[in-house]
């Protein structure tokens, strides 16, 4: 038997890794992946809570999160491609001006 808190701590660690990735990575694609990592961490806590409280709606939320993540990644990657086309770089430290 595994206490719920273990799952939550794992979820928290993943989330923290995602935030840290957002902060320290320079490649915009990797930053985007860090966001996915955060979402995954959240999903884990959803599923863990669903098991804890015997409520399947927690799992349903995970589906919605996945759908949103899929939509977000499709649009986000399209934006990344557009950014790369116009700026010629994927480094977010160099993409800090509104005008070209």
């Amino acid at each position, binding site marked *: 038997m*595994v*206490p719920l808190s273990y799952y939550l701590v794992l979820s928290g660690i993943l989330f923290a890794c995602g935030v840290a990735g957002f902060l*320290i990575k320079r490649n915009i*694609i990797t930053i985007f992946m860090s966001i996915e990592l955060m979402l995954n961490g959240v999903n884990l806590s959803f599923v863990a809570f669903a*098991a804890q409280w015997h409520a399947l709606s927690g799992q349903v939320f995970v*589906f919605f999160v996945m759908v949103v993540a899929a939509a977000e990644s499709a649009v986000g990657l399209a934006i*990344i491609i557009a950014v790369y086309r116009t700026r010629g770089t994927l480094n977010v430290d160099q993409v800090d001006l509104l005008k070209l």
Partner: protein
Amino acid sequence: MLHLIVFSVFGLVCVAGAINLLVQRHPINSALSLVVVMGSLAVEYLLLGAEFVAAVQVIVYAGAIMVLFVFVIMLLNAGVEDRTKGSRVAMLFGIPGVLIGSVLMAWVLLQHSGTGSVAVGALPGPPKVIGWLLFHDFLLPFEVTSVLVLIAIMGAVVLASHPAEVQHSAQPDEREG
């Protein structure tokens, strides 16, 4: 006991993948680390009895979203990232913030874990029940997400289409003239 072992093994794989994501400088390595994280998360889901979620996790996240990432990395031929120092704030405030936040949360969770524990297959999530929930209790959110996905598709098409093509189709004979 078995549950705890499996949880620990895949939990460690998960954390290792997440940390590898941070450490690796090449985006493709990061992406593959993330795939590993997602795969082991799928196992954790199985442990929690959410087998359908686990399968979808593999198919959607690992099989579709991450493929898209890899595809884009290949398409843009993204190289090793530069360790530019664009932001002191991220280092001065962000990292300590993350550390403080996660340590605090972990501490509190472990302090107040109570007696609640999760058994293998404690809550089987058969696809039928989840489908029932999706199409009855969560019908409106489901439809809304479908609209969201449609918008995302159109947005992606518009964003990724080459600007020159758009211009060209808008003014067909401008260039020839």
